[in-house]
């Protein structure tokens, strides 16, 4: 199955993949409406710390929540998103059956079933799952929101992030699933806890 892979050493840290992601998941598919009017979802600040949405709105620093994320080092950058693993730890870990695999092989979310327990985030080995804190499915409980991850842009031929990347740092292709990825989840506890 085709998924999005980053090409190391080609990312220029422009974050246009995130912009494209936000736009392609908006109703109007137009940048200004997508950013200003269509359900802004905030959760990272400029230094990539988690920010409570209420606070972020007050601070006037809205950053719409995209499904890919550029990780920044001083000199090297890379965009990460869901790999739709063949053996998807998140699907195994989801206690409500909210995450499922559709017939095309994509790992998708049934939004109504997610309660925000975050076992998927714990299980994901790519750190590709984030929290959509604007939605909550458990009334009366201060929720953490619901799962938010790449859906390979649903109906589009190639994902928006791959289409806009100015240096072709993202590729949409089929690769052999690495053998080591098929092993069981193993967690190495830090020495002080073990």
């Amino acid at each position, binding site marked *: 199955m085709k998924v999005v892979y980053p090409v190391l*050493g*080609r*990312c*220029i*840290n*422009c*974050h*246009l993949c*995130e*912009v*494209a992601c936000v*736009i392609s998941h908006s109703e109007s598919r137009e*940048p*200004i409406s*997508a*950013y*200003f009017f269509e359900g802004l979802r905030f959760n990272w*600040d*400029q230094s990539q710390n988690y920010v409570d949405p209420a606070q972020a709105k007050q*601070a*006037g*620093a*809205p*950053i719409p929540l995209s499904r890919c994320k550029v990780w920044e080092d*001083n*000199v*090297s*950058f890379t965009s990460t998103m869901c790999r739709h693993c063949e053996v998807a730890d998140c699907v195994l870990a989801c206690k409500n059956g909210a995450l499922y695999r559709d017939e095309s092989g994509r790992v998708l979310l049934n939004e109504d079933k997610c309660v925000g327990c975050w076992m998927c985030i714990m299980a994901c080995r790519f750190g590709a799952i984030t929290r959509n804190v604007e939605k909550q499915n458990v009334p009366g409980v201060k929720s953490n929101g619901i799962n938010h991850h790449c859906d390979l842009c649903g109906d589009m031929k190639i994902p928006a992030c791959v289409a*806009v990347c*100015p*240096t*072709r*740092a993202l590729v949409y292709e089929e690769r052999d699933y690495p053998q080591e990825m098929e092993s069981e989840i193993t967690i190495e506890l830090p020495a002080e806890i073990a």
Partner: protein
Amino acid sequence: MESNSVAQQEHTEIVDQLGIRSLRPGRYFGSLPQYYVDRDHDKCIRCLVCVRQCSWDATFYDANRNIVYNKYENCVNCKRCVAMCPTQCIRIREWTDGFRDNDNWSDKNIRGIYKQADTGGVLLTGCGNDKEYSTYFDKIVLDASQVTNPSIDPLREPMELRSFIGRKPEKADSSRELSTKDYPNIVAEVPIIFAPMSFGSISYNFQEGLARAATNMGTYFNTGEGGLHPNFYKYGKRAIVQVASGRFGVSATYLKQAAAVEIKIGQGAKPGIGGHLPGEKVTAEISRTRMIPEGSDAISPAPQHDIYSIEDLRLLIYAIKEAVEYSVPVSVKIAAVHNVAAIASGIIRAGADIVVIDGFRGGTGAAPTIIRDNVGIPIEVALAQVDQRLRDEGIRHCGSIIAAGGIRSSADVVKAIALGADAVYIGTAALLAVGCTLCQQCHRGRCAWGITTNRPELLPRLPADFAEERLTNLLRGWSHEIQEMLGLMGLNSIESLRGNRLKLRGVGLTKYELDTLGIEQAGR
């Protein structure tokens, strides 16, 4: 005086921290902005792409006001933000409230004086001479075949662009068994070679792109004075390697793997002065390539200290020829200056197989502005004079001429070849092909387009395969155009055009200029 400058330094640091650049004691105008970044805040979606792409510390985001703003004085008009903005909300304009109209004292002159009064330094710049001297290429027109001689359609008939560059035999042996001695030549499938640009002045990726494009198109790239990175030795058969006054990266292996060796005497943008790659730009890879310690300044002396005469030059030429066992041609590159014809004649007589003339429009990675803008002569006249002189002396076959500096289009290539060049170097055109916007900041080593920088965070902005693709496209487009132009002149080979000044006519030139160029007035 010293305590004054220390105090000044402290002031500057604090004011920089405060972010108010114009408030520097005694320096009211030094940081006067040149460009105004016009941002449509209604269309700005605060994606901060421009903030991340700006490498000049000119674009910032204020989270409290939720606004992207600029420090205008730092903007160099490289247009990186304009090109990357997803909503096209940025335009860059001249800072319009200039000084009182004055044709004599242009803004450029005034600003230059302010800057120098601030710093007491030499003003540096990159790229080529941008002053409004007349360009002779624009006053020369080409001939075409009509009725009395047929033009040729290059799409239907063979059209030869292959050029042999180097010393030719005096005459072909006419006996039945061909015994003519061939001198080593380089064979370019198109008469366009990438100009010397050193690794250090340009990025690793760009040099790799040049090497690969040259390989694709069967032409050559020039390493410049910075040596050849070991990873690029595989492109050695397409490399002209330079031996410059600093002798950076020169070794027997370096010379032997090359297609030709070039002795650099001068450069069109800065004739008669050397170069200086600041220590902070000498990274591990550059230190390895240049064979100098990491972090040390790479200083090229103004003259080659072992060449004070044509006889000395002959010694170096033959030293190199011995080193490469007479297997590749040796070229000598000089800037176009007064008396260039006599100098070129001396160079050919000293044993050089190729003489490269670099005109005053030639680019540079760093040069004092005053020298770039005022020293040297145009390539067109230098070329015409050198070709004529070598022909008059009967030594034109002893060496090829490569014209460099100011070749902007395929028409310029054709005109240069008709004026007597065997091939041309393109530098600025190659830079433009990969995204350069001629902001003239190459010397600062933080090119936002990733071309003239080796900062690891900027390098990926120009991947080698992009450069390869775009440069190959450029050469392919130009070679088609050259073929068309040859065809319309009724020629089927670039050899038939070489030095064929009858195909050229001048428009709007004085008789003296026409004489110097060796061409006729249009209409005659």
